[in-house]
């Protein structure tokens, strides 16, 4: 593992108009009570890139993901140490407004979880509570752009008052992505966003992820190795609360340096 070296190279790349570092995380530990779930993870998340976190169940990849917008705060026994900087600011600083943070760092979950409200309200809710739009016309515009960016507009434009929960699973997930986009986030976290979707809906979401990359930094946790290989530019392999290997996706999947990575991605893990 040479995250320190690669992050240096990436910072050099900024000068050449390459992706810039969005998140710098160093020595991140997470404890659930006595149990140490993450054991000092250091990783950089770059803008305009998809970073995939892979690893067996319980390896800490979702826990790490949830550190990035302080979702672990909602777990009483969870304790996070180490430094997590978003654009250079420590997101665990007392002065940080968690609600604001979660608007900047949006999240999409494994199971589509639209609010039991209309499609329109699902998307408009965030901008409203964050005061991004007060006039109806502005809100309409945000709803339309968000649904368009999420690739859902053409399918729902004539029935925005329908319940979000009435959509198909794939549409619901894209609605949740639209909802996340509506508050103009900078980073989108996705925790197994396709595991409840059929292959066609999965392909749509993957296509969407690739488009969203233009404007956001995306971190995706996935159990599907093929999905990680398809959608991401960087891949980090987690095992037992540590990052075993982190690098360019192509390299990880054709020529991993670590035997444990090789064993996992080729299906040799005992």
């Amino acid at each position, binding site marked *: 593992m040479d995250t320190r070296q690669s992050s240096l190279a990436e910072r050099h790349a900024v000068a050449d108009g390459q992706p810039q570092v969005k998140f710098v995380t160093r020595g991140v530990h997470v404890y659930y009570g006595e149990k140490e779930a993450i054991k000092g993870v250091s990783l950089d998340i770059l803008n305009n890139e998809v970073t995939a976190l892979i690893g067996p169940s319980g390896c800490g990849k979702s826990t790490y993901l949830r550190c990035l917008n302080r979702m672990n705060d909602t777990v009483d026994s969870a304790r996070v140490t180490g430094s997590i900087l978003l654009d250079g600011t420590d997101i665990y600083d007392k002065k940080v407004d968690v609600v604001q943070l979660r608007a900047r760092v949006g999240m999409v979950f494994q199971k589509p979880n639209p609010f039991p409200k209309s499609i329109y309200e699902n998307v408009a809710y965030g901008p409203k509570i964050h005061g991004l739009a007060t006039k109806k016309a502005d809100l309409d515009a945000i709803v339309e752009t968000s649904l368009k960016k999420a690739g859902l507009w053409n399918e729902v434009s004539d029935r925005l008052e329908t319940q979000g929960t009435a959509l198909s699973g794939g549409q619901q997930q894209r609605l949740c992505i639209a909802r996340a986009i509506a508050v103009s986030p900078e980073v989108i976290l996705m925790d197994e966003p396709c595991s409840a979707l059929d292959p066609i809906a999965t392909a749509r979401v993957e296509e969407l992820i690739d488009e969203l990359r233009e404007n956001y930094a995306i971190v995706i946790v996935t159990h599907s*190795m*093929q999905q990680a*290989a398809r959608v991401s530019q960087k891949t980090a392999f987690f095992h037992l609360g540590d990052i075993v290997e982190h690098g360019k996706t192509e390299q990880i*999947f*054709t*020529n*991993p340096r670590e*035997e444990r*990575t*090789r*064993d996992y*991605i*080729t*299906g*040799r*893990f*005992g």
Partner: protein
Amino acid sequence: MPNDHIVTSYDKELENLRSSIARMGGLAETQIAGAVDALFKRSAERAEQVVEADKALDDLEIAIERDAISILARRQPMASDLREIVSALKMSSVLERIGDYSKNIAKRVTAINESDNFRIVRTVGDMAHLVQKMLKDVLDAYIDQDAVKAMDVWERDAPVDELYNSLFRELLTYMMEDARSITPCTHLLFAAKNVERMGDHVTNLAEIVFYLVNGEILEDTRPKGDRTSFTVLRPNED
């Protein structure tokens, strides 16, 4: 491979692929020896055997291709497994090609035999011997996953090219001296060219083994030693 797959049938499929390649390699070696043997013994019968035996190589290539595609489709192989399958695909087509060259040499035996007094130049045998040894070693490198050994083979193509260059000039001289030798000399020249090409293909195999082991594609910077494309011999010159 140090660890087995969780799905044991996957291991078996990869193992089959490896042993099919090894079998193809063994056959290709035998074919070179057989073709050259037929040439020097002037045995049409032996040549016929070589031509017949080429079918087995063709069949194996198709079987390997089918198996490899099936694994790709069903297992979505990654990392060393992916390299293993891609390598098997490429190696099988190279080995099939090497077999074709042996077959072509064997086919020329009858025509060369027409000329009773024609002496088969020993250099062809020397070239074939070198190439056969290279092929054997590259197959060992494949089975042992030994990139160093593969690179050693890679560098051994130059002497084959050198022999070919000198043979080319030698045969041109014979043809200038005696017009009756043109037919057998031309056939022999083609046979030698076939051996020279086999050597090139063996270096491709070495590159594939290098990729299989190291995961890095070797840029083809090997100097080409066959200079006969530029060789001119003028009559009435020293």
